[in-house]
């Protein structure tokens, strides 16, 4: 029988579900606004604006649940990056995804109770959750209250630069989502990781 480990406590699963729904809403409404067209509307513009604003505010609140959860529970340890030897570990993991996985090599960083993420996952989650998302929140809230944005920075309009940073970070988050979904299919079976984030139990393979 495959060994299972209780990986995702209820609060993480709830946060993940809320996060997933809000991120998808934000990406769809964001793309709809950025590429709005009088002849074709993915979502009605006014509705997209309201949904984007509402989802952005809700995501900020949900982020604090994650942030403080990581600060006060054991889950935070998975996000502590060990810099020493990082490039070697990243290379090992990339090599495994690109080659070792297909020739049935052992995973260089097998999932365990002490090792929830492999180095590539860890660094991408860190960048997404502790860099891209905070930048999205700061720029998003600034765009909700543009009167607080400085007028000019390096000769460019402050509001334009804020919006561009928001869009670029939004783009990286959507890219992260696609890669995250794909990598999730590489568990014990293509659907096992999706089941894990619902039940909390992770199969070890």
């Amino acid at each position: 029988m495959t060994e299972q480990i209780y990986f995702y406590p209820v609060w993480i699963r709830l946060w993940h579900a809320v996060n997933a729904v809000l991120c998808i809403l934000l990406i769809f409404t964001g793309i709809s606004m950025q590429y709005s067209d009088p002849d074709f509307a993915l979502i009605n513009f006014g509705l997209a604006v309201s949904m984007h604003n509402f989802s952005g505010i809700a995501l900020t609140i949900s982020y604090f649940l994650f942030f403080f959860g990581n600060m006060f529970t054991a889950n935070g340890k998975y996000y502590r990056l060990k810099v020493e030897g990082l490039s070697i570990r990243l290379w090992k993991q990339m090599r495994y995804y690109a080659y070792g996985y297909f020739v049935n090599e052992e995973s260089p960083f097998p999932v365990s109770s002490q090792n929830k993420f492999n180095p590539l996952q860890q660094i991408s989650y860190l960048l997404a959750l502790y860099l891209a998302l905070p930048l999205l929140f700061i720029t998003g809230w600034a765009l909700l209250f543009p009167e607080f944005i400085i007028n000019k920075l390096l000769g460019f309009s402050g509001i334009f630069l804020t919006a561009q940073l928001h869009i670029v970070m939004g783009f990286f988050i959507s890219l992260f989502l696609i890669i995250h979904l794909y990598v999730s299919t590489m568990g014990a079976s293509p659907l096992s990781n999706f089941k894990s984030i619902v039940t909390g139990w992770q199969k070890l393979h």
Partner: protein
Amino acid sequence: MTHKNYRAFSLLLAFLILTISLTVIAQEDENSSTQALKYNPEDFPSFEDNEFCLRCHSSGYFVLSDTVSGLSKRQAMCDNFNIPKDNYYMSVHGSFSCTDCHSSEYQNFPHATSLRFEPAFACIDCHGGDESFAQYHFEEIDAEYASSVHAQIENGEFNCWKCHNPHAYVPLARRDTLSIDFVVSSNQMCLTCHGSLEKFQLLSDKELTGIVEKHDWLPNQSLHFKSIRCIECHSAQNLDILVSHNILPADSAIFDCVKCHSKNSVLMGSLYKFRVIESRKSSGFLNAAIIDNNSYVIGANRSEIMNLASLLIFGLTLVAMTVHTLFRVKKSKKH
């Protein structure tokens, strides 16, 4: 610190505060008393002649005298007839003498009532049919106005001067300064009547509707009011002239966000038209006219470079995932 020292320190501090306060007050007085003129009277040959009119018409009051009793008293000058000198001499018409446009009979005081019925010049009367003004397309502007909702006003009281103050007019739309001030000054033209029952009822018997309530549907209403002009939505665009003068009836106004918030934003043909024309002369990337300005229009601020870069990154990611999937399928078939 001893008690004595403490008292000496307190006195010194009080003295310093008092000195600084008095200096600030003195400087403020100095600033207000020696406020520099924004114009040089010597540049205006009619300056002396105009003083005869402007001593009343720029002072906020006039002196009314009764020739029978010999009594005189100060009366407030109505705002409509008050012409701040700074505004006049900085305006495009500042070089004119008052009597170039107004009857010389105005030199008699009190002015005769019949002068109130003196027909006022319209822009086209001076600027029409003149080659030196051809670039401003006054004839098209006149034709646009004739088909606008303003020209349909029942009592025929509407004219150019209801929106454009001839004594203060500066062609802001042709200047490359799309600041908030430009939008404010444009919207102020509309609000002069549409935001004041007093002015509105001089021209129309219709009910004056509240601007804020009427635009309840607009998200971030105050931001829109600050950033764009009323005419962006309330006039029909004409590519031949810089500022559309064909003001539409309220029910024909743009009511669709995407008209502005899209790649071919109508703002490019209205608010940003001058910048678009100017940017055509130099190379620039798409919608640079908006980007240069201190604003951001969701959906209209697109960069072709960023679009291409994002498509490339997305494309490469999808290709990598597809290739990886194919190898995974091949591997699973082996087992």
